[in-house]
């Protein structure tokens, strides 16, 4: 059964419609990535799934027992608010100290429990956000451009952490990303959004779709092909050759 079902979703802020007639569903175990230009409604879609924006039309339904872990785009903690990492992970529900250690280890930052949030580096901060999202053992992990502000190696490391988490916990991942080459290698399915669903499918299908090329050009295609060559030992895709040809 689908974890999340979005049916004919439209979202408007005042007179401005950011999403119209979006339908999609998220199935257990997959990594789905949403790509799209700025202002294409990616964040609004994610926020409607967590219930932070009300649809103007259509509906969003979650599987009844669904636990969601959410990593926001950016989180500003006011410097006047003292907060240790451990305390942050216990918001809003208290959890056992072992659960905190486990979540931090899963997120790749095992020794940070006693640190002040304000002292963390950008990469550490994002991983602590990931740990907080993981602490409830979510069925579905939602990430909204979680690597914003990280450098290239930092974000590559972050995404490989996400893949590791998925392997270890089997949780489903729905993420928004701007980093097309990373996205394409890590995702099972890509949804290209621009106010509506332009196209969706496996990374290869989306990358060769005319709608996608119209938005992102074909300039990224070379990089994509290169990247997939580098990592073809970790993936088992029948249509890899087609894709390479398409790229060339």
């Amino acid at each position, binding site marked *: 059964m689908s974890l999340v079902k979005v049916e004919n979703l439209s979202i408007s802020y005042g007179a401005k419609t950011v999403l119209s007639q979006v339908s999609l569903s998220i199935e257990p175990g997959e990594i789905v990535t949403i790509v799209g230009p700025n202002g294409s409604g990616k964040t609004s879609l994610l*926020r409607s799934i967590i219930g*932070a924006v009300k649809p103007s039309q259509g509906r969003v339904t979650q599987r009844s027992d669904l636990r969601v872990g*959410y990593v926001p785009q950016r989180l500003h903690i006011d410097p006047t608010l*003292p*907060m*240790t990492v451990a305390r942050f992970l216990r918001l*809003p529900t208290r959890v056992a100290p072992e659960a905190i250690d486990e979540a931090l280890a899963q997120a790749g930052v095992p020794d940070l429990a006693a640190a002040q949030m304000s002292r963390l580096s950008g990469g550490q901060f994002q991983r602590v956000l990931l740990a907080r999202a993981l602490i409830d053992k979510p069925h579905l992990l939602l990430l909204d451009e979680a690597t914003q502000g990280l450098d290239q190696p930092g974000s590559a490391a972050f995404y490989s952490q996400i893949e590791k988490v998925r392997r270890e916990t089997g949780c489903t991942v729905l993420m928004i990303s701007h980093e097309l080459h990373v996205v394409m290698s890590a995702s099972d399915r890509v949804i290209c959004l621009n106010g509506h669903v332009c196209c969706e499918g496996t990374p290869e299908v989306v990358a060769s779709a005319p709608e996608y090329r119209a938005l992102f050009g074909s300039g990224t295609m070379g990089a994509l092909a290169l990247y997939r060559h580098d990592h073809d030992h970790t993936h088992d895709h029948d249509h890899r050759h087609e894709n390479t040809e398409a790229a060339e």
Partner: protein
Amino acid sequence: MMLDDFMMRATLAGIGVALAAAPLGCFVVWRRMAYFGDATAHAAILGVALSLALSISVFAGALVIALLMALTVNLLTGRGYAMDTLLGVLAHSALAFGLVAVSFLSGIRIDLMAYLFGDILAVSRTDLAVIWGGAALVVALIAWRWSALLTATLNEDLAHASGLEPKREQLILTLSLAITVAVAIKVVGVLLIAALLIIPAAAARPLSRTPEGMALVAAGIGSVSALVGLRAAYILDTPAGPSIVCVAALIFAALSIVGSLRTSAQ
């Protein structure tokens, strides 16, 4: 008995307000809503005028108007004007309307100064009961919603994802603020209520590692300020409310210096 002594009643009143103001003040500081306290307090003057005109209790009048003010601000935020502009308009017009309303109250001689600067030495047993009742209610409300309030303060989307409703948490804060203002009017007066909210919380920051720690330290600093300030006012024959705020400000200055020395030593 001990409540017969006006100094004892004043001290207990000051401590009661300080205890309610501490956790609430922390949220006011964390959420950057210092002006919100001001606006609610200024509106309370209108409430005082109305309750004198209608011969109802000052506490009730101030509470109702402070509450209306807080709800209005809640409602109007995010609709065009920046928050500080909105609060500036509402706070100062409420104060002005209050002062004008007071002038219509012919026949009743009211000491407006007592409400602007507070008259803690005139606190009666009934006042004391109202102050401690209100303070207990505020502390209970905030303790009950503590984790939810903290989550919503950090990030509204995180709160949504955890199944919380940030708007409702904001309402709890707004409500607590109105109650605190209403009970504190007699103690420190309208002009200094915001000071009692913000200064102890800000002073507690350098000593705190967790939000809970900060609220407790703020409560301690607030209580010490009330004790020492009242004592100083008695000895030096200075106005009581402002003396309490002066002590809090001195503690803030001292702790800030200690805090920055500690940071630069690391």
